[in-house]
């Protein structure tokens, strides 16, 4: 093997590959230059491809001794200036919470893929959706994207890096066994057609620089590490200078800025897609791989004369409240579709409350919904 051959970072062209590989290619296209991960099925293909591809394009790969090592190495590399990522699957995602709490607190941009699985086995599931929002201790706002195909695993990974860099926040890619291990067509655009956002570095001198002062959207400008800016990155409450400070006013100001930079910029962050919604009287709301049978079911309903539409959530967290609210005003019933005991449904019902009826089509038996199952659910609501 010619190890001197320089590989391309962006593999422009049409491919046929598993979702886990598309996840890696999305990261590389976005400029990822650090990856740390610990073996876990069904996320192994991400580490394996990263181990081969990343060093070949000038990045660094590390297999941590556990997920804690991975997420803290990612936080360290991120603070040192890297575009850093880790990937795991549900059980491993538990371990990441400690590092996520730190990354939220010190505003270390990073991307985390959780390939959701059922307990210990690689069956389909969306049961971590709440952990992606509330898993880490403390107050913070999460950003989580839910791809539904191999192509979207590529596209949303770029989106995830962009959001991480722009808002200096961890961003979770909610992958699933269904799409991660499935092979599909993937089209990678030309490098100059990619929209890539990089974090904003300060123009100020170390003397003038305040590492936690609000910049654009409330996000502080970044300073390079090891170049005399002498920033303290502590999880403890800190003022604009970085002094550890337990004063309630300091605490309050930090907490409001940390959460406000996301919650006050939802319009920039939240994305949805609508299908057959123009004249819909009943709407399905789905995310991730459940979008696929949901769309099939909507088409079955349309063929049977029922005016049913679908709202697909690209962004699961923060909740796209504006988009859900508009639908709640339009339709007589909203049906939440998800592959768990009914978790995100409560968020949808909260937003819809008082404006339309709400129903749930949920299951957690290791299998994605079939279009027929969802269609049967629609028929019950329609009647």
């Amino acid at each position, binding site marked *: 093997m010619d190890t001197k051959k320089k590989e391309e970072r962006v593999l422009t062209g049409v491919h046929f590959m598993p979702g886990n590989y598309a996840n890696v290619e999305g990261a590389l296209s976005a400029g990822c230059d650090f990856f740390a991960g610990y073996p876990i099925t069904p996320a192994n293909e991400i580490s394996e491809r990263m181990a081969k591809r990343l060093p*070949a394009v000038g990045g660094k790969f*590390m297999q941590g001794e556990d997920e804690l090592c991975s997420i803290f*190495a990612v936080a360290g590399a991120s603070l040192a200036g890297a575009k850093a990522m880790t990937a795991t699957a549900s059980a491993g995602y538990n371990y990441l919470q400690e590092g996520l709490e730190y990354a939220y607190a010190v505003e270390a941009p990073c991307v985390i893929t959780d390939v959701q699985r059922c307990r210990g086995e690689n069956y389909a599931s969306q049961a971590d959706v709440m952990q992606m929002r509330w898993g880490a201790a403390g107050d913070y706002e999460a950003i989580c994207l839910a791809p539904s195909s191999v192509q979207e695993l590529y596209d949303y990974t770029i989106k995830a890096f962009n959001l991480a860099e722009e808002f200096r926040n961890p961003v979770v890619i909610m992958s699933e066994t269904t799409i991660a291990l499935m092979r599909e067509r993937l089209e990678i655009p030309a490098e100059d057609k990619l929209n890539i956002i990089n974090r904003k570095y300060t123009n100020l001198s170390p003397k003038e620089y305040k590492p936690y002062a609000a910049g654009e959207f409330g996000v502080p400008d970044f300073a390079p*590490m*090891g170049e*005399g800016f*002498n*920033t*303290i990155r502590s999880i403890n409450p800190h003022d604009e200078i970085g002094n*550890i400070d337990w004063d309630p006013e300091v605490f309050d100001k930090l907490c409001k800025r940390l959460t406000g930079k996301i919650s006050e910029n939802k319009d920039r962050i939240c994305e949805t897609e609508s299908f057959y919604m123009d004249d819909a009287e009943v709407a399905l709301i789905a995310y991730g791989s459940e979008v696929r049978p949901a769309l099939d079911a909507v088409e079955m309903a349309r063929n049977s004369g029922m005016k049913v539409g679908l709202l697909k959530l690209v962004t699961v967290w923060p909740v796209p409240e504006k988009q859900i609210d508009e639908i709640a005003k339009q339709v007589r019933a909203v049906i939440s579709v998800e592959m768990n005991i009914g978790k995100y449904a409560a968020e949808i019902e909260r937003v819809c409350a008082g404006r339309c009826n709400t129903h749930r089509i949920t299951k957690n038996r290791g299998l994605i919904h079939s279009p027929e199952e969802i269609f049967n659910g629609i028929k019950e609501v329609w009647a």
Partner: protein
Amino acid sequence: MSQVINPLRKYTREDKLPHFFCAGCGCGQIFNYFLRAVDELGLDLEKMVTIGGVGCTARIPVYMKTDTLHGIHGRTLAWASGIKLHKPETPIVIFAGDGDLASIGGNHFIHAARRNLDVTVIVANNLNFAMTGGQVAPTTPYDSITMTTPYGSSEPDFDICKLAEAAGATYVSRWTANKPIQATKAIKDALSHKGFSLLEIVSQCPTHFGRYALKTGNPTKVVEWIEENSITLPKAENLTEEEKEGKFILGEFVNKEKPVYGGTTAYEKE
């Protein structure tokens, strides 16, 4: 009369002083020795990254003019791995307590040593969990009274230096906080070493370990107890294993060169 100011004060974040260490704690001494070592080596402290996890010792970096990571228990070496792989030229020094390094961070510790990650670890071993109020640590001597071992500790203790050596560290030494010359020299050696360097400084904790295990809150008495139980490496070599039991053996145990860890690289292999 003008006030005499410690010349090493220029390396500190003066607005954060006075420090929060208890009177008689060894952390203040270790802080002092470190700054002296940096000064004598002529290193640019402001270009360094220092890391503290959680605990008393972990607060040392917060008082220095460096880039500092702080506040997560035990993950110091995991952070350092990411920084070192991305910016290999950045010097990294970790200040860890025995609990931070050998208890919650034990796994990261042995693996960073095994990889020969090019960082310096200064572990202040005060023989207990001090910041939380004096609970038993993996380094607490057998049968000691602590807040969570009111009937005496029933666990044997870790020898941090042996652990580091067995895991593959390429520089390992131990001194005590009451030996400024040797401790400062060892910090200089550790900072100058290419690869994973670990210096254990056995440090007095009069507030907790002293009061509970030694029945004295007097710092001098605790230092005297450490001194009575310390022997230098050449002297230790003439003792039997039984005679060495419970002693702090002081000196340099390992100093060797090995390739340092740089993560997976595709093109360095011929």
